[in-house]
């Protein structure tokens, strides 16, 4: 077995264990490349059955339009149930990154929104596409990561996780976040996308797009809700990760195909989350967000 075969077999193993031992699993689908790979692996794990769980997207109303199109098309073509949750308080208050700041925007829409959705549907297992190579606190997290009734993660007291024997037991109201891509790297994800011909959102590929400079990041103007003092300029850019468009920096790139992305990445000197505004709010901010229930 080569390296990707081994990662694939491990991830499928994880999916099957979690589904066999849970009552109400769900896949947190955030539309990015990791979610695309996650969904592809879920289909492989249960084939010829369909993945025996719905997809959940915690929407913020600030995602790129192309992401939403891609999401709806994917769910339709694969015939999977898609649950879209938008925090009703945020909808009512019109929470947005410009007036309320990135930290509050993320906490209310994503963290609180996710907790609401998990509670509402009483999901006891939630699959996510997080990888350990993304960030220092993620590097510490188990594949099966236990959450209290309040969705809190206690990083100082994680369950030991040996071999491939995953402890899936929880009391009512508690839950487990399961990360089948824990041991994948960004490069693995792209190599696998290439090998398996997995569709991804076109925003990953370089194209002339309207951008402005914001706090050292290249922000794409995706709709007319963005307050502007200058005219956007067209630049050949692409995205290494996808999130809320006002909080996701583009990179200048000419990579228009997956092999070109892989080539570009081998030479890269910055990490993929570098373009994420929310990670840099404070040092250790990912750990804090995770403790509060963020994915």
């Amino acid at each position, binding site marked *: 077995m080569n390296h990707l075969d081994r990662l694939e077999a491990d991830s499928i193993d994880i999916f099957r264990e979690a589904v066999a031992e849970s009552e109400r699993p769900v896949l947190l689908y955030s539309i990015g490349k990791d979610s695309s790979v996650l969904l592809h692996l879920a289909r492989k794990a249960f084939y*010829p059955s369909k993945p025996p769980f719905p997809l959940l997207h915690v929407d913020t109303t600030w995602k790129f339009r192309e992401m939403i199109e891609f999401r709806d098309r994917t769910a339709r073509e694969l015939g999977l149930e898609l649950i879209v949750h938008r925090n009703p308080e945020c909808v009512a208050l019109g929470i947005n990154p410009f007036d309320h700041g990135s930290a509050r925007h993320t906490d209310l829409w994503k963290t609180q929104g996710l907790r609401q959705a998990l509670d509402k549907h009483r999901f006891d297992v939630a699959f996510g596409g997080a990888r350990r190579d993304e960030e220092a606190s993620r*590097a510490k997290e188990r594949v099966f990561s236990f959450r209290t009734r309040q969705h809190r993660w206690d*990083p*100082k007291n994680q369950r030991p996780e040996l071999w491939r024997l995953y402890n899936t037991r929880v009391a009512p109201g508690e839950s487990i976040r399961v990360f089948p891509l824990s041991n994948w790297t960004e490069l693995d994800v792209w190599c696998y996308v290439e090998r398996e011909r997995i569709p991804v959102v076109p925003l990953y590929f370089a194209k002339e797009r309207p951008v402005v400079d914001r706090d050292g990041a290249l922000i794409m103007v995706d709709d007319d809700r963005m307050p502007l003092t200058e005219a956007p300029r067209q630049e050949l850019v692409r995205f290494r990760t996808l999130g809320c468009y006002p909080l996701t920096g583009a990179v200048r790139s000419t990579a228009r195909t997956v092999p070109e992305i892989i080539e570009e990445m081998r030479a890269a000197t910055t990490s993929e989350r570098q373009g994420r505004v929310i990670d840099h709010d404070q040092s250790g901010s990912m750990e804090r967000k995770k403790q509060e229930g963020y994915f």
Partner: protein
Amino acid sequence: MELLRFITCGSVDDGKSTLIGRLLYESKLLYTDHLAALEADSKRVGTRGDDLDFALLVDGLAAEREQGITIDVAHRFFATEARRFIVADTPGHEQYTRNMVTGASTADAAVILLDARKGVLAQTRRHAHIVSLLGIRHVALAVNKLDLVGYSKEIFDKICGEFTALGLDFAEVTCVPMSATDGVNVVGRSELTPWYDGKSLLQWLESVEIDEAPDGPSRFLVQWVNRPDADFRGYSGRVLRGTLRKGDPVRVLPGDRESVVDRIVTMDGDLAEAPTGTSVTVVLADEVDVSRGDVLAAAEDPPGTADTFQAHLVWMDESGLLPGRQYLAKIGARTVNVTIEKPLQLNEIAVADVHFDTPVPFETYRTNRDLGSFVVLDRLTNATVGAGMIDCALRRSANVRWQTLTVDKRARAERNGHRPCVVWLTGLSGAGKSTIADLVEKTLHAEGRHTFLLDGDNVRHGLNSDLGFTDADRVENIRRIAEVAALMVQAGLIVLVSFISPFRAERALARDLVEENEFCEVFVDTPLSVAEQRDPKGLYARARRGELANFTGIDSPYEPPENPEIRLDTTALSPEVAAGVVVAKLRALGIC
């Protein structure tokens, strides 16, 4: 490209995190934004003055940075021209041993660090022992901080000699003289150790042999029964050993069912064969009964099935292991009840006898890690409290068949005119359990029911006269009573059990030994102050005077039931009324 998974371990402050930071840095594998964050963090919370504090790269948790220690295992990924690596950086503190074991369980190789000034410490030996126990056969001993002893060859040789003298079961031990802080012999060979002609640590990592999973007869673990529609029934799982081929005759374990592999299904099309490690879906030629946890094995050479083992155990919970207490064990894709006959404390490693309540297909850990390892879970907290590696089966369960009896429980119930059950009264000493139990039995007896009362004090004179009042003895006391009560239920009786029975786990065990509608837990709820005031046998007074040790409620805990069938508040109810409540509940449950 090949993948090597390895751990770094050793005592605290030996420089494990620093070494990984150095490896990433020197191999030019740090992204510029990570490096910028590292520079800022080093100034803010670092312990290296103006220099980069590489430990901050892996010590990613706030608590770790605050205290300058590693609490949990961190996984980092890097690659060189030769190989890809996943390194698990594990904590050195003894109290976090379980996290070190977590990292070691999936590693192909280990780098054990030690401080050249201190040599082989107790924690070095402990980690080396765990590494060996978990079956990691390739070890590099990184003799670190050699700069602080003037790169002395004598000291290096002495330490290597000490380590080799431990006599642990490794295929290979490579000693590397090193300074992680200064980058000596980490990536390239250094001129500061001209007397050393071996490999640098990275050179070792790039060339160390990766053990293949042992080949042999095929074993396939069923994780999930795949039934999309009435026409398809497949078994989704993983090939744990050997190669599974279309047309292979297979045995379904446990049991003696046999069939033939008809198809090996994947989303990319059917396969002719599936090698070790692959996750596939198997369709059998016959309609045999197969469920999650079963093993499909080469019919000509199937693994054994047993319920009693000798195993190496690592205990990982603050609460020690209580011999005789029932825990859960997850082995393969199956969870069974387990009892272990040896008291163990946190971080203790020992060989013990392990009893599963159901026979399971197994192989020794040495032969097959997947079928030879298990984790121990606490039934109430759900915590992972232990890990085990099977050395051998102590008794093939094939020899001990359960006798099928003609006169069964149902036949007895018909003759008796009522169903059997256990009425389990629990509560503090002096709560009134025996008085109430006695009244209940009188009522039932007068109605012609077949009853028996097991009383704590009485049983301690006979069956349990060898037991005292330590936690371990209390567990065994209740285990025996639970078994006796279950036998009496088989005999068709309504069994009244009047025992303090302070621990939830043992009461849960008693409940599990009978069927669901055959157990009625009665919580005789009396506040400690009231029970102490009553003190019918003068025991509380003696306990307060220090004449009785381990007295429940005084210096030994009582865990009240969370969901008893009946709760009797004895400050509000007279014993007669309380007994009436119990009898009424038994009627409502259809017992009598």
